[in-house]
C-alpha cells in the first residue's frame, strides 16, 4: 500500500484497540462512531488487555469482530447477566456490554434492571435508535409515538402499543446505579460529550464505584428510510424531545472523580 501521509503528519487513524476487520454496518449508522469512542477510551485508560466485551443480539451482534479485546456473545437481552457471571469471577477485569434498544429495553428488561439494582460493577453502552435494526425495522419499546415501522405501519399508536420507555430515567431511580447519562451521536459536539461520558463510565467501573450506563441516541437511516444527514437532524428534532439528553444519576463518589 502506498503511504500518502507521512507519519509525522498523521492526525487520525484506526485505533489500535480495533482489529483490521471492516464493519458490516450500514452507511450513516452511528454504531461505528460508538465503537470508536469505546476503543479510544480503552486505549486512553490503557485497559485494552484487561477488557472483556459482551456483544448483544441485534445489529451489533458482530461487535466482537471489531474490538481487539476478548469478547463473548450473549443471548438476546442477556448481556448484563452474562457480564455479571464474568465480573463476579474476574472482578479486576473491565467488563462491558454493548446493547441496542430492542435487546436492552424489551427482551432484556429484567436483566438490565436487576444488574443495575445489584449495583453490578459493569459498564453498559446502550444504543437507542428507536427501532429494531437487524430484523428489518420493527417497532421497539423506544419507538416514538406515530413513528412508522414495519410492525407499526400506520405509525406507533399509543392506544394500541403503549408509550416509549425511557431507560435512563428508570434506571437512574435505583440505588444500585452510580452513573447513568444520556448522550447523542448526531453531531460532533455531542459526540465529544458522549466520549467524555463513556470515559466516566469506564472510570466508574475500574474504580469499583458501581453500575454505569451511557445511553447513546443513534441513527438508523436504513430502517428509518431517511438519508444519513437528515437522520442526524431527525435525532435532534424528534428523538431528543422524547429522550432529553442529560445526567440522570451521578453518585457522590462518581461526582468526585476528576478526569
Amino acid at each position, binding site marked *: 500500500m502506498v503511504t500518502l501521509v507521512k507519519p509525522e503528519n498523521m492526525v487520525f487513524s484506526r485505533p489500535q484497540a480495533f482489529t483490521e476487520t471492516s464493519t458490516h454496518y450500514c452507511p450513516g449508522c452511528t454504531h461505528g462512531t460508538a465503537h470508536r469512542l469505546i476503543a479510544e477510551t480503552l486505549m486512553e485508560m490503557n485497559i485494552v*488487555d484487561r*477488557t472483556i466485551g459482551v456483544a448483544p443480539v441485534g445489529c451489533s451482534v458482530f461487535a466482537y*469482530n471489531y474490538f481487539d479485546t*476478548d469478547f*463473548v456473545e450473549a443471548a438476546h437481552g*442477556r448481556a448484563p447477566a452474562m*457480564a455479571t457471571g464474568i465480573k463476579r*469471577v474476574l472482578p479486576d477485569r473491565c467488563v462491558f456490554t454493548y446493547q441496542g434498544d430492542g435487546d436492552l429495553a424489551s427482551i432484556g428488561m*429484567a*436483566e438490565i434492571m436487576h444488574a443495575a439494582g445489584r449495583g453490578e460493577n459493569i459498564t453498559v453502552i446502550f444504543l437507542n435508535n428507536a427501532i429494531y435494526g437487524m430484523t428489518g425495522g420493527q417497532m421497539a419499546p423506544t419507538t416514538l409515538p406515530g413513528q412508522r415501522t414495519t410492525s407499526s405501519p400506520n405509525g406507533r399508536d399509543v392506544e394500541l402499543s403503549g408509550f416509549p420507555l425511557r431507560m435512563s430515567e428508570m434506571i437512574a431511580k435505583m440505588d444500585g446505579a452510580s452513573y447513568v447519562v444520556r448522550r447523542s451521536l448526531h453531531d460532533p459536539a455531542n459526540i465529544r460529550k458522549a466520549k467524555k461520558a463513556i470515559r466516566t463510565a469506564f472510570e466508574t467501573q475500574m474504580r469499583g464505584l458501581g453500575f454505569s450506563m451511557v445511553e447513546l441516541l443513534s441513527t438508523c437511516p436504513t430502517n428509518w428510510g431517511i438519508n444519513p444527514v437528515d437522520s442526524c437532524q431527525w435525532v435532534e428534532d424528534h428523538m431528543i424531545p422524547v429522550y432529553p439528553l442529560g445526567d440522570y444519576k451521578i453518585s457522590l463518589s462518581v461526582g468526585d472523580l476528576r478526569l
Partner: protein
Amino acid sequence: MAKELIKGNVAMAEAAIRAGLEAYFGYPITPQTEVLEHLAKRMPELGRAFVQAESEVAAINMVYGAACTGVRVMTSSSSPGVSLMQEGLSYIAGTEVPAVMINVMRGGPGLGNIAPAQSDYHQAVRGGGHGDYHPIVLAPASVQEAIDLTVLSFDLAEKYRNLVFVLADGSVGQMMEPAELPEMRPVVRQDYDWAIRGRGENSRPKRILTSIYINPLDEEIANLRMLNTWYQIKQNEIRFKEYYLDDAEYLVVGFGTAGRVALSAVRKFRANGVKVGLLRPITVSPFPDEILSLLAGRMKGILVVEMSQGQMLDDVLIAVGRQSPVHFYGRPGGVVPFPEDVEREINRMIVSDSKLVTDPRKAWLDRALAKI
C-alpha cells in the same frame, strides 16, 4: 472423612464446593432450594461467587458468562425452572464451554407439584433447548451417589467442554441419609487456551466465545465437532449399576429413585429363588444401550419402572428391539411407587409367558385407567 446424616440437596451443594466450585448462580424453587440456601452461606465465607439471580433465565446466563472464563460454575433448579433455563443451556452447548446444572425434578407438566418425579428425562437426555447437542446426564439414587456424581460432573464437564446435568428427583434432594463428603479440593484455575479472561499482560491474541456461526458451513463443522465429542463421551463414560444380572432370566430397568425402589422388589424375588436382576443406569445420557442390548437376548422379559409416563422406556425399546418382551410400569405426576407395586408388576411379567408386547405404555395406561 466420616459419614454424617445429611440431606441430599445440602450434600450436592457441599460436594460441589469441595470439588472446587468457584461460582454459583441460582433462583429459589422447591424441592431444590436447599442447594441455593447452603451455597448462599458457604460461598461468600469461602470468598467465592454467589448470586441469587432475578430469574432462572438470568441465572443460566450468569453461568454462561462464568463458564466462558473457564472456572467451575454451576446452577441448580427444579423442573419449571429448568424449562426457563433451556435458552442458556443451548447457548452454553453451542459455545462448547463446561457447565454443571442440578435438576431436582418435580411433578409436571406446567406448575405441576413439588413431589418427586422423573418426567424431565426426555428434556434432559435429548438436550431440551434448540439445536443439536447432547448433555451428559447423571442420575443418582442415594445421597451418597448424589455427592459422588456432583463431584464427577465437574470433571466430565471440563474434560469434554460439555454440559453435565445431575438429574436428581425430589426424594433424592429431600431425603436425609448417612453419607460421606469428599475432602476439600483446592480451587484450581486451569490455563485453558479458550478461556476468556482478557488478553493479559503479554497481550496474547484476542479470544472470542460465541455460539453464532453465521456461515451454515461453519455451523455444520461445529455440529460435527460436537457430535464427535459426544461419541468420545459415549465410548468412555457410560456408567451403570448392575444387580443379580449373572444368571437373571428377567430384567428390571430403572434409574434414580425408581431404580432404588425396584431394587427392593428384586431382592424379594431373589430371596424366593426367582432369577430377577436390575440394571440401574447412572448415565442416562449417554444411555447404556450396548449392555442392555446384550442382556436383552437372554431375558424372558424386561420391566421398565419410571416415575413418569415412560420416557426412558423409549431408550430401552430402541436398545432391546424385538429381542425380548418389554413391559412398563410408571407413576407419573409426582407419585413414588412402593416396592410392592413393582413386585406386582414383576409377577405380571413372569406370568405373561414371554409374549412380545406391542405397546407397553398403552398396556400400562389401560391398567392404570381401569383403577381410577
